């Protein structure tokens, strides 16, 4: 069965690439990806597709993540870039070198995102979402500045959005902080799993708030029809699905 949008992640590289081919052949036009040069190369060869991205990339740095955590991994990654690459990202990064070395994550995050965008911009993604591990960490710590820094980035034509596992809390905080995200990527599914605070509340937001809501859904082939039927009826902008089996 065809999926409207494909979430690419969680599998081994070959499996991911095969899955992309198969989905494209079946008619999938929307792809949600992390920064992965092989996947970007593969998608660049397709016509009439739309791409969406999640940053910073987590999956390809999983070993560093295991050892250092997301923040630790980011710091290591930026430190490993060197002056030339920092210059490629932006001249302003150089002026912030002191803060980078002092490990101010509010300064590190935009650079980390721009590092990923160096590759991703080949696909001209429509929307770039901040990874939920970052968004939710900011929500837990009431860290307006971190979210604000991300949302004020300039990534060409890409609109900036937030990915979260805590949708109601995100909306509550955005309102409190006076911030506006162009798009929000959150779990939506037939069983209401991880739709916080509740399935009804999340569905109501889609109906009443004038925003672009995107879904990410993990499902099995057996439940795909059920999920598609549900997702197509609640008014989401795009639906991205990762089939687990």
């Amino acid at each position, binding site marked *: 069965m065809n999926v409207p949008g494909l979430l690419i992640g*969680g599998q*081994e590289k070959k499996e991911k690439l095969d899955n992309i081919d198969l989905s494209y052949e079946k008619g999938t036009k929307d792809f949600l990806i992390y920064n992965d040069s092989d996947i970007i190369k593969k998608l660049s060869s397709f016509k009439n597709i739309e791409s969406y991205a999640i940053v910073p990339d987590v*999956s390809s740095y*999983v*070993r560093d*993540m*295991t*050892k*250092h*955590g*997301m*923040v*630790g991994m980011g*710091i290591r990654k930026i430190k490993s870039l060197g002056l030339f690459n920092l210059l490629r990202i932006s001249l302003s990064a150089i002026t912030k070198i002191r803060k980078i070395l*002092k*490990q*101010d*994550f*509010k*300064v*590190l995050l935009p650079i980390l995102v721009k590092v990923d965008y160096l590759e991703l911009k080949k696909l001209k993604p429509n929307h770039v979402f901040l990874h939920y*591990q970052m968004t*939710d*960490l*900011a*929500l*837990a*710590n*009431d*860290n307006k*500045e*971190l979210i604000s820094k991300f949302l004020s980035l300039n990534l060409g034509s890409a609109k900036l959005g937030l990915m979260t*596992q*805590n949708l109601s*809390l995100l909306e509550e905080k955005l309102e409190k902080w006076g911030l506006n995200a162009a798009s929000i990527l959150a779990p939506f*599914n037939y*069983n*209401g*799993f*991880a*739709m*916080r*605070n*509740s*399935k*009804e*509340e999340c569905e109501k937001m889609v109906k009443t708030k004038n925003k672009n809501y995107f879904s990410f859904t*993990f*499902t*099995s082939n057996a*439940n795909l029809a059920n999920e598609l039927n549900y997702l197509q009826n609640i008014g989401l902008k795009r639906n991205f699905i990762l089939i*687990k089996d």
Partner: protein
Amino acid sequence: MKILVTGASGFIGSNLVSLLSEKGYSVRCFVRKSSKIDLISGYKNVEIFYGDMKNESSLFEATKDIAVVIHLAASTSEKASAKSESHEVNVQGAKHLVKACQKNKVNRLIVVSSQSTKRKRQGNYGLTKKLADEVFKNSGLDWTIFKPSLVYGPGSKGLFTKILKLIKSLPVIFIIGSGKYKLQPTYVNDLAVALVSIIDNKKTIEKTYDLAGKDQVQFKELIKQINQELQMEKKLVHVPFWLCYLGVKFLSLLTKNPPITIDNLLGLIQETEIDLNPAITDFDYSPISLQQGIKQMLWDLSFYPDKKRIGIIGLGKMGLLHASIVNYLPNTQIVALFDVSSKVKNYIYSMNIKAPFFNDVDKFLESTEMDAVFISVPPAFTWSIIEKCAKRNINFFVEKPLASSLEYAQKIVDVTDEKNLITSVGYMYSYKEIILKAKEIIDSNILGKVIAFEATAYITQVLSPKKGWRYQKSTAGGGCMSLHGTHLLYLLYFFFGLPNKILSRLFYPYSEVEDKAFAKLLYGSGIKGKIKVSWSEEGFPKLTNKIKIIGENGTLIINEEDLILNIDTKKGPYNDGQTVIARDELHFASFELGGEGYFTQDQDFIKSLFKQNPVKVNVEDAYNVQKLLQCIYDSFEQKKEITLK
């Protein structure tokens, strides 16, 4: 088996629907169009049916294909003008329901009535519920009636919550009359568990049961207990009963939903004889204590005045995660941060985690008073830190494994016992819903007698020689088995307890600690188990645990995302053949950070500091896991099977 729950969206109903769904039943929720359904939607196998107790045909439609009806719906209004409404919903509704059950051949009917039906002086509610009880008793159906006392619990909008809110907000506490009348309130989850437990229980047919809490307490004493729990010293002011009666009567004329009703008032002063023995005998009714229930309520209402003062020791990946969760929880405050490296201070501050930072653990502990610390440091350092915390009577959460050796783990257990500290250890799998479901299946004998298991834990982490504390025996205590295998060892301990004998083989291709480990386990009950753990396995970007349990009635495969149950004979709610229980069909926490289980685990520890509940995994459990780990290392070193003492 499909169950119809009337009044499903209410306080008792929403708790019941959640439990029924969790137990694998299909549920049809009978609710009015105007009902809020957010608390009952989103559960597996739960459908919403809009109807009205006053509408006979809607009940007829709702009872089609139903095996059991649990009847909760009632009108509780005490306004004089609502008398006819109460009669129509409670009495006529009962008649409609009985007719519908008879027409659709639904024999089993479980009714939640009320203690107020036993009182001499009754309001609308008590009177009409009493009449309804007679309708059910004469129905010819397999009825059971529960008469619970005042029901309370988290999420309640009832009298108990209103009393708590009044106590919190008013400068003095008003006591109605002498306050010597006794209460024995029922905790909502106890009622839900009782309802589910009698669905198939034939002993309970055509019987009426009293249900109440474990403890009986004078109203005045209850107020004092709450006052004490909230650390308030508010004065008690007695108000004559007649004055209260007039006041409540006046309020009921003014507002549709007064904070206290005439029935509440009559209920308070008229004690009823409650006999829990039949419920205990027929369906093992075992309610929680009132103190425990009150603590749950106060937590739910965020009423605790003091915030627990928390210190964070170790600010690496796990330290940041715990600090962020503590920062998010409403009843906690981070008061100090410690890490050996001062470099992390800036990035922790830039994450908006603000508290004085120390790189000297003694100065950290001396800096301020702390109720508890979260310790996320290499296992080689846990004992020395815990020893210092124990000297200052500081409770602690410590990341797993407990220590770098069994000797240090023993010291931690001893000092914790001696100081009577509240402890928790980071075996967060015990907070994953899929694991709790697996445990329920094993314990409820769905698989029959367990014969064997095969367990694996794989991750792609070490494919070449590595440097760092994690890969040194002196700091990490061990390799893949210690870091990742301990989660698996904990799960096996959680499911089956400790084995009698262990035989192991370890492999060291890249590090001075083991990269791969194999072990065979033999249990006193005869269970034989095999474990394989590796951090050098390609194709596993994240830690992947898998356990296959073989029983006399079939197998259960426990994955990270689902359970696959294959049984020969139908047992409980599970049919013979294959049943897949997906993670996304189960309950999920109200907040998530860092993956499933972490938030619930930390919240559980904080709750235990408020003495609300014991933690799921304490240092003794972690010591047993350490014992298992040590035997695996000993068996390999001694090249023989080790018997656990």
